[in-house]
């Protein structure tokens, strides 16, 4: 099976209730993105930069948490968090009305 390593010192969100909607990009994430842009030139184009920012933002807020989200040009939008909310989402909104929503654990 896949072995994963988790950096317990990585900055992460520690609020009380998980955020929904468009996720604000934490300053720590922007710092990493800026560093990676320099390190990975000339291969880090706009799409790769956006993907890196979105992935790090998801990890910051929701690492190993089951969520439903969509990627938008403005960033990551979270529509459901946890098994119960995702169960409700699946029951109430048919898939064709949420075509870009993906479910998984970042």
């Amino acid at each position, binding site marked *: 099976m896949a072995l994963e390593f988790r*950096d317990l010192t990585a900055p992460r969100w520690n609020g009380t209730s998980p955020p929904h909607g468009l996720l604000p990009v934490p300053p720590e994430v922007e710092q990493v993105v800026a560093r990676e842009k320099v390190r990975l030139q000339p291969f880090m184009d706009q799409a790769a930069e956006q993907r890196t920012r979105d992935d790090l933002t998801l990890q910051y807020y929701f690492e190993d948490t089951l969520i439903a989200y969509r990627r938008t040009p403005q960033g990551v939008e979270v529509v459901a968090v946890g098994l119960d909310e*995702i169960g409700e989402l699946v029951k109430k909104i048919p898939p*064709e009305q949420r075509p870009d929503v993906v479910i998984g654990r970042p």
Partner: protein
Amino acid sequence: MPSLKLPILGKTLWLTGDVLLRAELTLLLRTNQQTWESAFFRVDPGTEMTTMPASDAKKLDLPMPQNPVPGLVMNLPGGQGTGEVRAGIIRAQVPGLDNTEHIFPCYFVGDPNQVPPTTPKNLLGLSGVVDKIRITFDGTAVPGCPYGQMLLEKI
């Protein structure tokens, strides 16, 4: 032959500065209602069988065997795992590849009615997959894919 290239993803550890690579793939999974749900899978050549938490499969309303296989457990790093394993299948399309509905064998792990104590991810293993889709990893950096690409080809 339909093919799809996806970027290999990288995560830099704050602690060591190491870049950890992974490959992920979104699959459309057919539900009991004959609708399609999107779920992403970690592509893992080290995994013998595609796996998915049974609790996630239940919430997504995926078809799944009612009963676990007696005596079947999953080996985990550091020891033998405990818990239930249901041997089933997933009916899946690979968005961006073509509209073929593949049938992949899948083990649904854990209790469908309980959130797993650990946080397993969906894993796409080799069995019943690589005879249908050729998966190649190429670490050559190209614009937009600084860590290289994963190539999927329908066989």
